[in-house]
């Protein structure tokens, strides 16, 4: 189609592109600032008054301090454990539930779906949940306390159910003819054909565990169990410099204090920022609209 661009079209495009460049700057710059600051000379950062467009000098002492800090190392190790075990349990449970609810000829499908969807809109609240886990199940300082209560996220369950329902029924019929039972249909037919949705849901769960702090805050008294985010909270928000500079000799404390928090933010954030762009083209599989409805 050959239609001439009018003057308003050109103005529209210029304004639109300019605004979108603004979007890039607004979302990217805060993290860039942190990155520049983390590599900067701590002394110069303290007296600097303004934006950064490159590190002031270049040093990695802040990172050296971070990786010598025993609290951060333990937090990192704990977080990896919660992410791996938690996501594995999440995916196992969610996949089973989504498969069961995606089968059309199951008698109890509708009542079960209703009972599950209802939990999206009504909950007993924080306190009964806390009392259940902390008192009834006696899970204070039990690593499973940050994993089991969130074993299934209902939104993720519905996303997978929608994806599983999208697999052509003919494939399932064919497998059933060959004598396949539900377990082999799930693992050999449904899962291989739903990998994009499974990838997105795995990412959601993993990022959720990586970023979680609240359950750990209310269920853990023992600092040795703290995930990275709780250590971060103490350092970034409660401004606990003792934790921040643990493992550093007294003379160095002064000199790295100004940049160390930036290095910590980078260390805690980079792993996720490296992963999500690769799954970006699947994100649309992870949105759900009208999927709540039966």
């Amino acid at each position, binding site marked *: 189609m050959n239609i001439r661009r009018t003057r308003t079209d050109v103005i529209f495009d210029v304004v639109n592109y300019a605004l979108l460049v603004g979007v890039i700057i607004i979302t990217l710059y805060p993290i860039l600032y942190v990155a520049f600051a983390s590599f900067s000379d701590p002394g110069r950062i303290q007296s600097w008054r303004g*934006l950064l467009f490159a590190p002031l000098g270049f040093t990695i002492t802040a990172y050296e301090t971070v990786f010598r800090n025993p609290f951060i190392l333990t937090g990192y190790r704990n977080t990896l454990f919660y992410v791996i075990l938690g996501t594995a349990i999440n995916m196992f449970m969610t996949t089973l539930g989504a498969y069961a609810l995606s089968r059309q000829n199951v008698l109890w499908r509708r009542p079960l779906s209703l009972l599950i969807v209802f939990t999206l809109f009504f*909950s007993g609240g924080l306190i009964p949940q806390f*009392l259940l886990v902390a008192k009834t199940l006696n899970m204070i300082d039990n690593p499973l306390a940050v994993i089991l209560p969130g074993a299934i996220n209902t939104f993720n369950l519905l996303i997978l159910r929608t994806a599983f329902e999208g697999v052509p029924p003919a494939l399932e019929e064919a497998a059933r003819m060959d004598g396949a039972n539900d377990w082999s249909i799930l693992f050999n037919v449904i899962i291989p054909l739903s990998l994009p949705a499974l990838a997105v849901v795995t990412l959601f769960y993993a990022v959720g565990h990586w970023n979680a702090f609240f359950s750990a805050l209310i269920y853990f008294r023992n600092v040795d169990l703290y995930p990275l985010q709780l250590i971060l909270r103490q350092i970034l928000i409660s401004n606990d410099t003792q934790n921040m500079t643990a493992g550093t000799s007294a003379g160095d404390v002064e000199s790295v204090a100004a940049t160390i928090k930036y290095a910590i933010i980078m260390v805690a954030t980079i792993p996720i920022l490296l992963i999500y762009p690769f799954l970006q083209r699947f994100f*649309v599989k992870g949105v759900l609209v009208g999927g709540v409805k039966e």
Partner: protein
Amino acid sequence: MTRTPPPSLGTRIRKDFQRNKGIYLMLIPVVLYYALFHYGPMYGAQIAFRDFVPARGIEGSTWVGWDNFKEFFNGIYFWRLLRNTLAISVLDVIFGFPAPILLAIMLNEVTSIRFKRLVQTTSYMPFFISVVVIVGLLIDFFARDGLVNNVLGRTGDARIGFLSEPNYYWALYVGSGIWQTFGYGSIIYLASISSIDPQLYDAAKVDGAGRFRQIFNITLPGIAPTIVTLFILRIGNILSIGSEKTILLYNPLVYQTADIISSYVFRNGVLNGDYSLSAAVGIFNSLINLAFLFTANALSRRRGGTSLF
């Protein structure tokens, strides 16, 4: 052809179980999970009507009827909590709800695929950053000696204490929330736009419709059902702001504008051990949300529009 009578419920249940044994086996952990961690707390929520003493257990604690609710409604914090929760939520609906729609429409007008990709990738990024880091950044950037004051050229006493001044709290909270989610939120609208028939745009161009006309007459009507559905969901969550960000961002200096229902439940319940009162507050919150959700859904359905259920 003779009609066989429908099998009795008992027969149907038995046949269904034989056919779907594998599926019911899969459902065991799922049903146990929902029963224990979702319906268990709903059962436990009855402590809102009791004077709960942990040593006595739920059933052993004295029944007090509506006393906990009355105490909350008559308490000095009730109106403050309600106002703050509503204000933050309404501000977020007003400014935060249209933001991803606007971004999606702007992205749809971009012809360069690479540029579009670039904007998408960067604008999704904040969504994946943890709330601890977000609040850490806010506290660092908006501190008296922080980046924002520096960039504004404020020195000495003219420096603004954004984090200790109640007037700035709502803007900080809502603004950072929008920053974090508007990019990611645009995905669903972009998906919705991509299902609009491209011929509509071609026809409009032939008729001489400009860009704005195309946006208002094709794009917006095309994604209207998506907008309505998400709006109903959003209204249904009008009072359900979680406590996670609040308990990290607020401090006693700004409680006046910062304290919301969920942060009060956390402080009063988990930290101070006033379980029954806090459980009552939680139930109140949940019920109000349910009422909003059903109202929004019914209004939308009556007007012949989209509905959730």
